[in-house]
Structures are given as structure tokens and as C-alpha cells.
């Protein structure tokens, strides 16, 4: 008898977004009853792949086979009907509805097609929760009142309320404590014993060793290794597969080490409970300090707390020796801090406005007297700042929304340049910036540092931190696990540190 076809076989999947080829011919086979792990760095294409699998994105090319039959996943509902359920990292539950209502959302048991049989919904929800080992969750409670771990269980119950054959889990353990992770893995074990397949995305290698059967490694939109045995493949080999890059970034020359001057930015014992542990760091004028770590390691939270956008629970921030008022963005800006946030469009840019107005917004007092704006001076200064950064097009009166990602980032940098800031906080500066424009952005950041700015850089792309920074702090789950000059680190070592938490032997 011929071997049974795989439950799921994706082949040659490509998907492009403007400026980025997110998936470049990816193949993925999943057998019934296995835990198939997807590994890859941020931006490797994992999220795009599972979105294609869950019907949220349509692939440009490629075929998807389901139990030997070719299928098209036109929408999340189509995928659900086949028996593919996805549990996203950001839980997609409705907080103001009850557990039972969430579990049955969109497919409520009904009488005459529209009267919801609430009792039946509760009963079946209770049964699902018992099966998941959480009989203590009351189906009538509001989801908003549950803990993160319990919400995860509700998501699982929702997945199982369909006749599910394949569950996709995107970093399910990120928000859970160890006991809860144990329970989750027990559930995964039960499900696979029943023949359900699980696609599991995680950054934690020890988890993959514990529950994984096979591993597929993605890198730059390609599957560089398929179906490796999860338990026996050496860490070193996995890390090597994740890091061997095709795209080489060009980083600017590092100048000679900065002389021992007084630090411009000093952070002492800064902490936010539940987000990151007490942190000390210093950045000198002319120096770029990088924070490396994975999503969820607290990097953005650290930058935003230094900047005053979040109130610290302990510690202080000093600029030129003077303590900043905690939790005040205005105090930070006045002291000379500038932030280029991770979510440029949501956190930095006024999308309806021109480049000029986006650049001048933090320095308006410089072009105004008694509140009256000298628009000529404003335009001239904005133009000078954007020229200095070679922002394209060379016309600051165009709307900022028409710019490419890299030029939008330059507009944000120009804002702080014009303000005359001393310390630049960069959060994922090349997110949404296409590969060609990155080198230019790196050169800009280095030049600003050479001109005397202190730069604190956060990036989930390890090569970026290593290539650009002078000194690197490695973060793992809110703790600094290692500090070293960038020259003394390489990508393998940093990845070992962020994934295993201890220096690899």
C-alpha cells in the first residue's frame, strides 16, 4: 500500500509585499499526529507562512495540499472549515464576551438558525475545558477577567470547538509561566495522540527539544532545512542554519574606540515590574550601544521607559548628569532625548501632514514668536535637516505618507536632528525598510554618532546590532545576560545567549 499522503503539504509558496519578498518558494510538509516546529529569526517569514496557512494571506504562487487534495484557502473561514485552527501570539478574543461566547463565536449552536442555545454552548465549552485540563474556568465568565494563561486555554478551546486536524501555535509559551507551559505541552501531547497535527513556532530551543518531532528552519523567506529531527539536531547546527545569510548588509566603518569621556546618558537600576529587571547602562557621546534580544525580551519597553513614555517602577535616567523627571516625555525631550519608535506610522508620524511639519513638530518654538510660526524659517530648517540625511524626494512639502519606509525613518531622524538632540533612541530602525535602503540608514546613524550624538539602538536583527553598535547588551526576557564590545561577539554567540540564556559551551 502506498504511504499515506501528508496531512498538509505546502510547496513553492511565494508571497511578496511592496519592497519585500517575504516568502520565496517555501515547502512545508506536516504529518498527522506530529509536532512540527518552525524556526527562524525575526523577518525570516514565519508569520507570513502561518498567515498563508490560516487563509489570512493569499500566496502569489505555490500550491497547498490537504490530505492529498489540492486546496485554496481563500479566507480564515475556509481554512477553519478544513480543520486548520490558528492561535496567534496576540490573542484574538473578545474581552467583553464570556468564555462560552468566545469559544463559539461565529458558529454558535442555534435553534431555527438564529436563537443562540446558550445552555448548549456552555455545556460544550465546559466539556472542552475539562478536556484541556482546566475545569476551573467558568464558561460564563468574561474573558477580560481571565489571566493570560487562561485566555490561552480559551483560544485552544475555540480551536478544538471545530473539528480540528491541524493547530498552528505562534509562540504560545511567550506569556506563560513554567507550570502553565507544562500544562500546555501535556495538552499538545494528548492532541497529537489523537492524530491532530501541531505547527509550533517558538524561539526556545529547549521547548522544541521537549515536544517537537521535526523542525523546519526558515531564513530570508526560504526553508533552508526541512524535517530535521527535533530531538537530535545539535543546537550549533540549528543556529548555523538560522544565521547563514544570503543578504550581506554593508555597515559603515567603526571609528577608533571612543575615548573615556563622561557618559551623556546614564541609566541606573531602571526597571518596570513585569517587563524588565533593573538595568544599568551608559552611552557616551559618539558611541552606539546596541540592545540585542528577541521579541518579548523587553527591548522596546526599556527604550520607552528611558524616554519617559512609560513610568519606571524603580531607578533613574540621567542626561549629562542631571536626573530626568520619571514618566515625562516632555522632560526627556527638553533634556535632549529623541525617540525613533518601532511603530513609525502609529507612534511617530502625522500621516496626513507634509514632511516639513513632521520634521518641525518637536522644534516649533524655534520658528515661532508668541506662538506665531515663521513658515519660511520652518521650511528652510526642515529642508536643511532632510538634506543632511539625503531624504528623497528632496522636497519637504510632499506628504509624509508618500515616502518609502526608509525615507519616513529619515524624516523621524530629521525631527530630532533639527531639535538638536543629544541622545537618539532607535527602536527597530530598519523595520519596514527595504534591504537596499538599509545600508544608507546605517551610514546615517553612524555619521550622527560621529558628530557627537549618543545612540541607543534596539533591534531583533542580530547582524544589525553587531554591525552598527560599538557595544552590545544581550537581553533575555527582561534581563541583561551579557555585555561586550560588538567586535568580540558574533551572531552565533548572541543567538545562543538570547535563546539558551547562558553562554554556550
Amino acid at each position, binding site marked *: 500500500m502506498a504511504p499515506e499522503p501528508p496531512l498538509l503539504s505546502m510547496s513553492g509558496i511565494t508571497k511578496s509585499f511592496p519592497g519585500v519578498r517575504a516568502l520565496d518558494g517555501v515547502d512545508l510538509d506536516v504529518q498527522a499526529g506530529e509536532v512540527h516546529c518552525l524556526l527562524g529569526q525575526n523577518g525570516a517569514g514565519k508569520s507570513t507562512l502561518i498567515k498563508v496557512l490560516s487563509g489570512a494571506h493569499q500566496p502569489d504562487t505555490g500550491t497547498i495540499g490537504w490530505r492529498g487534495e489540492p486546496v485554496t484557502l481563500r479566507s480564515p473561514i475556509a481554512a477553519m472549515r478544513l480543520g486548520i485552527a490558528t492561535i496567534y501570539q496576540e490573542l484574538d478574543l473578545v474581552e467583553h464576551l464570556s468564555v462560552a461566547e468566545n469559544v463559539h463565536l461565529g458558529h454558535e449552536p442555534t435553534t431555527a438558525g438564529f436563537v443562540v442555545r446558550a445552555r448548549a454552548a456552555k455545556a460544550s465549552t465546559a466539556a472542552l475545558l475539562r478536556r484541556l485540563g482546566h475545569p476551573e474556568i467558568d464558561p460564563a465568565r468574561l474573558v477580560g477577567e481571565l489571566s493570560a494563561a487562561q485566555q490561552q486555554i480559551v483560544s485552544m478551546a475555540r480551536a478544538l470547538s471545530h473539528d480540528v486536524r491541524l493547530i498552528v501555535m505562534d509562540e504560545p509559551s511567550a506569556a506563560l509561566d513554567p507550570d502553565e507551559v507544562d500544562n500546555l505541552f501535556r495538552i499538545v501531547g494528548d492532541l497529537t495522540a489523537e492524530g491532530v497535527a501541531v505547527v509550533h513556532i517558538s524561539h526556545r530551543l529547549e521547548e522544541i527539544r521537549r515536544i517537537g518531532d521535526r523542525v523546519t528552519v526558515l531564513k530570508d523567506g526560504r526553508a533552508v532545512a526541512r524535517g530535521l529531527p527535533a530531538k537530535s539536531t545539535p543546537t550549533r547546527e540549528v543556529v548555523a542554519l538560522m544565521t547563514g545569510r544570503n543578504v550581506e548588509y554593508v555597515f559603515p566603518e567603526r571609528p577608533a574606540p571612543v575615548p573615556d569621556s563622561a557618559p551623556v546618558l546614564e541609566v541606573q537600576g531602571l526597571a518596570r515590574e513585569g517587563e524588565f529587571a533593573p538595568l544599568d547602562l551608559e552611552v557616551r557621546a559618539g558611541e552606539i550601544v546596541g540592545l540585542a534580544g528577541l521579541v518579548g525580551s523587553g527591548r522596546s519597553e526599556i527604550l520607552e521607559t528611558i524616554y519617559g*513614555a512609560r513610568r519606571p517602577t524603580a531607578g533613574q535616567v540621567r542626561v549629562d548628569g542631571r536626573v530626568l523627571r520619571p514618566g515625562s516625555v516632555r522632560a526627556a*525631550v527638553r533634556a535632549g532625548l529623541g525617540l525613533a519608535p518601532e511603530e513609525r506610522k502609529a507612534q511617530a*508620524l502625522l500621516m496626513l501632514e507634509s514632511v516639513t511639519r513632521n520634521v518641525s513638530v518637536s522644534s516649533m518654538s524655534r520658528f515661532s514668536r508668541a*506662538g506665531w510660526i515663521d513658515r519660511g524659517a520652518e521650511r528652510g530648517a526642515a529642508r*536643511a*535637516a532632510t538634506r543632511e540625511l539625503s531624504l528623497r524626494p528632496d522636497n519637504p512639502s510632499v506628504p509624509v505618507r508618500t515616502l518609502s519606509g526608509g525615507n519616513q525613518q529619515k524624516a523621524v531622524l530629521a525631527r530630532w536632528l533639527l531639535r538638536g538632540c543629544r541622545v537618539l533612541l532607535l527602536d527597530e530602525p530598519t523595520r519596514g525598510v527595504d534591504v537596499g535602503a538599509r545600508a544608507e540608514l546605517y551610514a546615517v546613524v553612524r555619521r550622527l554618532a560621529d558628530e557627537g550624538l549618543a545612540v541607543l539602538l534596539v533591534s531583533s536583527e542580530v547582524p544589525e546590532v553587531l554591525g552598527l553598535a560599538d557595544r552590545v547588551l544581550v537581553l533575555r526576557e527582561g534581563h541583561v545576560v551579557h555585555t561586550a564590545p560588538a567586535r568580540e561577539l558574533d551572531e552565533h554567540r548572541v543567538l545562543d545567549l538570547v535563546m539558551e540564556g547562558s553562554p554556550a559551551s
Partner: protein
Amino acid sequence: MTQHASPPRDNTDKVPTTGQVPVWRGLFARADVRTLSLLGVLAALVLIGGITKPDEFLDTRNLQLVLTQASVIGVVTVGMTFVITSGGIDLSVGAIVALASVWATTVATQDYGFAGVLFTAVIVGVGCGLVNGLLIAYGNMVPFIATLAMLASARGLALQITDGRTQIVTIDGILKLGERDSYVLGVPPLVLVFAVVTVIGWLILNRTTFGRRTVAVGGNAEAARLAGIDVRRQRLYLYLLSGLCCGIAAFLLIVLSGSGQNTNGNLYELDAIAAAIIGGTLLSGGRGTITGSVLGVLIFTTITNIFALNNLQSDVQQIAKGAIIVAAVLVQRRGASTS
């Protein structure tokens, strides 16, 4: 104090700017499609008025009347435009106008004469705006709810003060302002006030840091905060400004009607919001136009006038207004998507 630390980048201010195109072209480009279409609608309405009632509509007195009627709601709309541009809403404007007009016309207030009435109207307006602003900016209340509460309580207080009676104004100076003798070159003083408020409003929105902050807060409050703008204080100021406009409008209404009534300003909130929206101010915030709002007010007032002259009932008027709001927004949506 950190500014001296910046490298000398401002020396390049003399870079030539784009201001070298002829002035008339700049003006034409600035008078965008939306403003032109609003002017077109207004011209069409004047044409309709002139054709259906040639003698009555184009009569100087009638035109003076239209402009006078537009003045009261127009001043309110200028304040509302700022609030909406910042992403907020002020549902209490009509009630504030009512409260300010009755408080300023009580017998006790009228004892203080012209200045007493004017001062009271403005202070009551600003006071209500202050309450709105504090609740919204520092009490973290949703503008819709906070100003809805103000609507209810200000109307209630206005009724309590008057006991439902009309308070007649007995101060000559105020009454004279409404008479033909005080018209300046044929323009009623009320219309002059409206014009001045409009010009100041336009300048503040387009030429000052206050206007920029308003637009920034409405366009992206989080980005504004991270850029170093004090978003809360700006919100407070905006509701104060709206309250101030209501106070001025209340005084204009006192002059116009020679009295103060607790039913004054009924549904002004809807008229002002509608005028701002058809003028091109985004209800979601981030873009506002005083010119558009004023044209919106003029369009609505002209329609009301034409309908009244043709003896059409107010029910037909209401339906026509509703249709115009829908049509204007649909036209703008298309204009926005093609540009």
C-alpha cells in the same frame, strides 16, 4: 538650553524654497477642489434663490438677515472646528449658548450694564468649556460623554434660572447694536464679529503653534505625545476655546433677539458639526478647515432662508439638510480617493 549644543545646521536657512511660483498660482492651488465645490454650491443656491424669489431674496435686507443668522451659529462652528480637528467633539455648544444667554440676561446681571452682560456671557461659556476640558483632558473621559453630560446639565441650569420665562433685555446699548442705525457700511455689527472670529480662527489654526498642535493631536495623539507635545493641556485649551466661542455666540444671540431664553441654541451642536463636516474637517481629526466650516454655515443658512421665502415647511428643510450632508461627504470621499 540644549539648543546651543546642536551643530550649526540653521545656517542653511537661505536655501531657496518653492515660493517662486506666481502668487496667483499659489492662491489657486491653495483654493483646493473642496473649497471651490463649496463655493459652487453656494453660488448655485444664490442662483436658485434669485430665480425663485428675485425680489425678496436678493433684497439687501434679506442678505443682511441671512448673514446675521449665520453669525451666531458661525462663531460656534469656528470653535467646533478646532475641537473636531483635534479628534474630539463638543455636544454641549447649544446648551452652553442657552446657559450663557440666560445667565447674562438675569435682572441682577443687567444691573451691571452692557459690560456686565458681555462679561457674564463670555465667562459662563469659558467656565463650561473649562469643566469639559478638565473632564476630558485630566479626567480621561470620552469627549462624547463629558460634553453630553454638560449638554444635559447646562440646559437644566438654564431652565432653572429662567423658570421657562423669556428674559427681556432693557439695556439700550445692547438693543441698539441690533438696529439698522449701527450697521457699518451696511454690515450689521454681528456679522463683523463673525468675520473677526473667522479671521482670528483661521490665523490660529493655520499660522500658530497652537493650530499645529491641534492638528497633531487630532492626526495622531500618540505621535504628538512622543514628539514632546503636552497633549492633555492642548485638549484642555481646545474645549476652553469652544466654550469661549459659545459665550461670544450667546452675546450675539442676546443682541439679535433682545432677550435670553433657556431654549436658545437648540440643536446648535448638530448644525455646527454638520457645517464643519461638509466644510471638509475630518470627524476623525487631523485635518480642519475654517474656510470650509464658514462656507458650510453659509450654505445651511441660505437654504433655510430660501425655504422660508418659498413658504416651505421646516420638515422639508430638515430632509434637504440631511441629503446635503450625505452628498457632501460622498463627494469628498471620492475627491480624497482620486487625489
